[in-house]
């Protein structure tokens, strides 16, 4: 009974989960838009203090990782697991690179005394406290999703190596791809909202 396979069903289930994820981040986007509406000037100034080149770099990293993810699925379905593995590993690498950049960015901010509940941050304008509160919550939650994604990618890597998923049974990798692309899309919105809008 547990072997009844329903590929369309699995994909539908994954999509429903992604819709749920959209609203999870959606709550944060609502908060962001309200606070930005209330503190336009301060958000403007605070956004200028973020490291834009690093933000651009990370955007390119994630976009490219989406490409390698799509290619990995493409080659798995075509029946060349070797290339699929190669692109999957690239995705994994790019994901790690993204998190590493994020880590650098956060560390620099923390060194400046800008982190939640920091005495030096609380001395500043209220709008700036909110900006960084949102910055840490939203990029933090996104980073957490990348981290989870890396875990799933590693499992998929293992499954392909063990031939547990292959061109006949590629749905787990396709669903991983859907998740990874969604995480990318969330970043596509976070990036302009925090780094570009000045």
């Amino acid at each position, binding site marked *: 009974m547990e072997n*009844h396979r329903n590929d369309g069903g699995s994909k*539908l289930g994954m999509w429903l989960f992604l*819709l*749920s994820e959209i609203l*999870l981040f959606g*709550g944060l986007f609502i908060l962001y838009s309200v606070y930005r509406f209330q503190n336009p000037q301060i958000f403007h100034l605070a956004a200028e203090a973020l490291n834009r080149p690093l933000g651009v770099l990370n955007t390119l990293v994630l976009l490219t990782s989406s490409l390698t993810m799509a290619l990995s699925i493409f080659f798995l379905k075509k029946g060349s697991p070797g290339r699929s593995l190669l692109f999957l590993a690239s995705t994994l690498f790019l994901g790690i690179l993204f998190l590493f950049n994020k880590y650098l960015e956060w560390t620099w901010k923390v060194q400046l005394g800008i982190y939640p509940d920091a005495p030096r941050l*609380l001395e500043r304008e209220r709008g700036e406290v*909110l900006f960084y*509160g949102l910055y840490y919550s939203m990029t933090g939650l996104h980073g957490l999703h990348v981290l989870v994604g890396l875990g799933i990618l590693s499992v998929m890597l293992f499954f392909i190596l063990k031939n547990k998923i292959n061109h006949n049974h590629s749905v787990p990798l396709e669903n991983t791809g859907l998740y990874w692309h969604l995480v990318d899309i969330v970043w596509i919105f976070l990036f302009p909202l925090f780094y570009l809008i000045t």
Partner: protein
Amino acid sequence: MSSFYEDEGRFRGILGWIFSTDHKRIGLLYLLAIFAFSAVGVLLGFLMRLELMAPGPTIMRPQTYNAIFTLHGVIMIFLFVIPGIPAIFGNFFLPIQVGARDVAFPRINLLSWWIYMAGAGLAVLSLFTGGGPVDTGWTFYVPYSLRTPVNVPLAVFAVFILGFSSILTGINFVTTTHQLRAPGMTWFRLPLFVWAIYATAWVQILATPVVGITLLLTLMERLAGVGIFDPLKGGDPILYQHLFWIYSHPAVYIMILPAMGIISEIIPVFAQRTIFGYKAIAFSSLAIAVVGSFVWGHHMFVSGQSDLASIIFSLLTFLVAVPSGVKVFNWVSTLYKGSIEVSPPLLFALTFIFLFSIGGLTGLFQGALATNVHLHDTYWVVGHFHYVIFGGTGFAIFGALHYWFPKMFGRRVGKKIPYLAWALLFVGFNTLYFPMLILGWEGMPRRYYDYLPQFHSLHLVSTVGSWILIAGLILMFGHLIYSLFRGEKERLENPWGGATLEWQIPSPPPRENFAEIPRVERGPYEFR
């Protein structure tokens, strides 16, 4: 053919249950857990009523009282009524009613039960760790929940985990309804219970994450002091209320829609007459789910939100009454000229209509801006939502238990005791909750430990009502448990003459429901 009770899985004994991916076993696991928690909730409610029997301290201290009303709310809402019908009866009957062998993702279904148990376990743990039991009320409103020394972080995290379980259940049901319908089971041949669970599942998928992020932020606020909801740091507590009610109002529909689905099953069967306005009922479920998602601001009329927002939310709130009214009229019309047999399930269903109507109509008073100012946070509100949730969802669950009992357990329920239990429940319920409406109208605030002497007599009546109600609950559940072991064996597939698929398979159902997937050729309420 042997039933699903006979072990055929990988494990034996209790492991064969807690690691089973069979939707019927998971439904029964939920049943056991959910009713166990609801019993605790009832006990807490009983203690609250005891405390309020007389003004001044009666049996407990104020802080204990605060913890108890919070716990009563958290348990009843997050552990009982939100998962209640979908997790128990949805799991057991949705796959059968659409003609499938199981839900779309049996293992995720089992996982959702485990997550539910983990969430419940954390909620229990939060009572004994940190600063002790939460005293914020089930809404965890900031800024109080940020300042109170009690163990808010763990309790909030527990509710977050429970939300996860709810989302997974929703995903399972939507996928099952889309993908696993038997041949010939078109959308408009789906039983209305399936429609209701389907609409509910969408709300679970789309609204739960919003409260998830809200609670997560509250947690981060407690642990890291992020400041998003903290007025000291520039945050806006009213935004917390917005996000909280964006979920928690639709959550009311997660509680009531499946109950309406049950009523739509019971009434045609016991009138032996096809349902009046099938499509109207099906679409009104969707309409309630959609419109109900945009009315949350009516919880915030006195919070300081803008007048414009209050006016619009009030208008939208009145709109929800329309699809709810459509349902009530259709149920009543179904009875017209039917061959009605007032068996216990129908009796509970009719009681649902009566009590839910009182609950719904009292809701209109609160939805109107001017009266809301007077009624907000009074016992009127307490009376109102108990009429809707207990009188509605609670009585629907009682009806469902009696209706599906022979199918689920293969035993019959006695013929006399359910009526007696019903009488106690009905009288007890109204004695308990109707005085609350009057108390609230007269100005008694909710969540208060003490009160003025002029409220004494009505509080006393209400407390006496709680005793009658609990006597009814004990009698009913005692009788059901007795029937479970000693009841007459149900040999018939279809004791009530139902036309939906679950009545065409043995009682209790075999392990994979259908020896052969049925071909559906008629609607769910076409009786011969």
